[in-house]
């Protein structure tokens, strides 16, 4: 069926869906279903959080689409042939930032936003499943392992264990039944690299898993995806169905006798399930509590059988490596960290979003060249990598290369790829408190040091933020932090103290200012700041007094007003409403 026109919709899939539904509905109502095809493409950058569409062959580019104006586009443009001018992107209005920066290299993300994720044909047209075909018909499992070893691909979930070694252990482990598992439980706040891959290029993950299954001798695989990613789950299910129809999953794949099938399993809102042994417990239908290691999953994983578990990004790299050769992959990156890595840049940076860069790029290049620099040109303070289990990189390490070893050497971690930029207005005590609150809430409770230790650390941090810190608190945090690290079974407990410890190491003076001077240098902690009205500037308009929720401001009209710090709750409304900026924070 040849279509008269194609509409390609891009944007965050969760937001784009209602627009797509409205557009399809309207096209159906207008009787154009046989003439116009609507394709979904997940876009890459989230610099402009807008739903956009391009209508071909006209090449008209629409932005800021809502379900309502999508219907308008259908009636006006698609039916009557009159492009809707006020929704069109004007040539000069296209921000150059939306283009991938020159420092980026897309391997894992190469198809994301380019192909229709719900079309296996699109993927095949981009050499999809060619690697699986090559592996099954021309390569031995050992040949695949050798290629992987040459590539030096390391696990992209955070720990960075060499993939070829993991696969070799699982291959050599004796067992009648083996499993392949994909960790799609991307739980770090602010990280969404894997979500975009699953939503935008699901077949690359399926193909990587099938290759792993061939190497280790597995016949069944599980994709564990967190419940917060409904679109990813749906896309994967469609992809698996299509792969089965094409004979790329199931029995006798490529006529080689190799059998492999996949099932998607959904998480239910537990961060700890991103830990591999907890994840496997969850797949088995249990509470997601980590197991003691050893034995490692490679010898005793799902249901006690040899299991290979990697994350989404690791698997998505595999087909590319086998098609282009391990040497091609190893040519990117540093001596010990090869290839590219996806990061989700967030926080106080001009251009937030998803990027893929060769490992070995410096922190400075990511923040300033790819991210466009610190928001509002404030002073750079630090970058948090590795999410709530990682650490911070202060300014003095800006020129440090981003690779597994360098990050670990400064007390941070690669993690799955969260990259949060913090500026001078970020309080490092408050930030540590935020991460500790997260880790405390998500601690599964199995290991006492993690369950109780994170609670105690959070109590201390909350007290410091509330101006009730006392001498010895910093030392107590350090001692507790070390105990939690060494006394916990899994990565959650071992990593939870990292943000606090690395922030104390790099910004100890901020902690001391909170405790000894009862002062928050970044002016964030409410108990330690005071709002003041400058009597010289105040024009006595009474606006602040009228808006104060607790009536802490007094003064006569046309006379300077005064804030009573005893009553003031530091909500900041007065500063927002003041027409002459007379309210300052101290």
């Amino acid at each position, binding site marked *: 069926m040849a279509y008269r026109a194609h509409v390609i919709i891009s944007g965050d899939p969760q937001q784009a869906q209602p627009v797509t539904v409205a557009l399809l509905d309207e096209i159906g109502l207008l009787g154009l279903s046989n003439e116009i095809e609507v394709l979904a493409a997940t876009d890459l950058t989230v610099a402009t959080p807008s739903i956009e569409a391009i209508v071909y062959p006209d090449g008209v580019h629409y932005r800021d689409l809502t379900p309502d104006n999508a219907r308008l586009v259908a009636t006006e443009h698609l039916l009557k042939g009159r492009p809707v001018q006020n929704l069109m992107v004007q040539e000069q209005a296209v921000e150059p930032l939306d283009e991938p920066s020159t420092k980026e290299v897309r391997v894992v993300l190469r198809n994301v936003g380019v192909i229709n994720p719900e079309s296996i044909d699109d993927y095949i047209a981009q050499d999809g499943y060619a690697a699986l075909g090559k592996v099954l018909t021309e390569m031995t499992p050992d040949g695949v392992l050798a290629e992987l070893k040459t590539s030096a691909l390391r696990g992209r979930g955070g720990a960075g264990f060499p993939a070829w070694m993991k696969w070799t252990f699982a291959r050599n482990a004796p067992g009648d039944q083996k499993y392949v598992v994909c960790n799609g439980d991307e739980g770090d706040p602010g990280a969404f690299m894997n979500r975009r891959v699953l939503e935008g290029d699901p077949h690359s993950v399926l193909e990587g898993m099938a290759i792993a299954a061939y190497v280790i001798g597995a016949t069944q695989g599980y994709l564990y995806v967190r419940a917060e990613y409904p679109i990813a789950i749906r896309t994967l299910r469609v992809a698996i169905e299509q792969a089965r129809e094409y004979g790329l999953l199931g029995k006798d794949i490529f006529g080689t006798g190799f059998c492999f099938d996949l099932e998607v*399993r959904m998480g239910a809102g537990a961060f700890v399930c991103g830990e591999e042994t907890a994840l496997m417990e*969850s797949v088995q239908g249990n509470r997601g509590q980590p197991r003691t290691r050893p034995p490692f999953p490679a010898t005793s994983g799902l249901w006690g059988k040899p299991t290979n578990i990697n994350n989404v990004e690791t698997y998505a790299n595999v087909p590319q490596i086998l098609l282009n050769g391990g040497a091609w992959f190893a040519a990117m990156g540093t001596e010990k960290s090869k290839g590219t890595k996806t990061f989700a840049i967030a926080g106080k940076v001009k251009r937030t979003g998803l990027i893929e860069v060769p490992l070995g790029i410096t922190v400075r290049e990511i923040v300033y060249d790819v991210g466009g620099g610190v928001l509002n040109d404030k002073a750079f303070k630090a970058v948090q990598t590795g999410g709530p289990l990682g650490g911070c990189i202060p300014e003095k390490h800006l020129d440090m290369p981003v690779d597994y070893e360098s990050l670990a050497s400064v007390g941070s971690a690669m993690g799955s790829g969260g990259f949060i930029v913090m500026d001078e207005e970020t309080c490092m005590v408050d930030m540590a408190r935020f991460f500790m609150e997260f880790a405390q809430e998500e601690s599964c409770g199995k290991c006492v040091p993690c369950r109780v230790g994170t609670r105690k650390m959070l109590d201390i941090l909350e007290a410091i933020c509330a101006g009730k810190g006392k001498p010895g608190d910093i030392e107590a945090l350090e001692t507790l932090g070390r105990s939690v690290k060494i006394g916990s079974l899994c990565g959650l407990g071992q990593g939870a103290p990292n943000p606090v410890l690395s922030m104390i190491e790099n910004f100890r003076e901020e902690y001391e200012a909170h405790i000894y001077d009862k002062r928050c240098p970044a002016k964030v902690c409410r108990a330690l700041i005071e709002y003041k009205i400058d009597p010289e500037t105040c024009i006595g308009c009474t606006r602040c007094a009228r808006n104060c*929720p607790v009536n802490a401001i007094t003064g006569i009209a046309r006379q300077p007003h005064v804030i009573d710090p005893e009553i003031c709750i530091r909500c900041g409304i007065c500063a927002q409403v003041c027409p002459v900026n007379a309210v300052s924070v101290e």
Partner: protein
Amino acid sequence: MTLATERATPTILELSSEEKVELDRILEENRGRPGATMVVLTLTQERLGYVSPPMQRYIADSMGIPLSHIYGVLTFYSFFRMAPIGRHKVSICLGTACYVRGGPSLVEKLQQVLGVEVGETTEDNRFTLETCRCVGACSQAPVVMIDDDVVGRVQPQDVAKALRKYE
């Protein structure tokens, strides 16, 4: 992990016939699936809205696993609900500004008007009552969020009126 703070609604002791039909269907679909517990519970919540104590018992008996295991799984993961939530969510802000401006008296009043405690749902399934931290509307304190609407400067006597338009 959050503890099981949700109280089971004491009035529901038996499965309704619709619930039983749906549960049977879900159990049948997943018969023989390895590690099916989570899958069954997820589907139950997806199709029936929550996993009530009678549903838990029915699933445990049908799958031949202890009820304690089902309960353990449900309480471990934050996504599962054991009681239905209402069509509308009423959250009273208890941030500092709202707190000093009478948030707690709104809690009292709403509990009285709706006849439920915080965290519970009215019998007609219309409202679920919750409290929340600062929603960033301090100048309007005290604030009540009804679904996504911010209702500001709420006095206890206005509460009933504010709820009227949410059916």
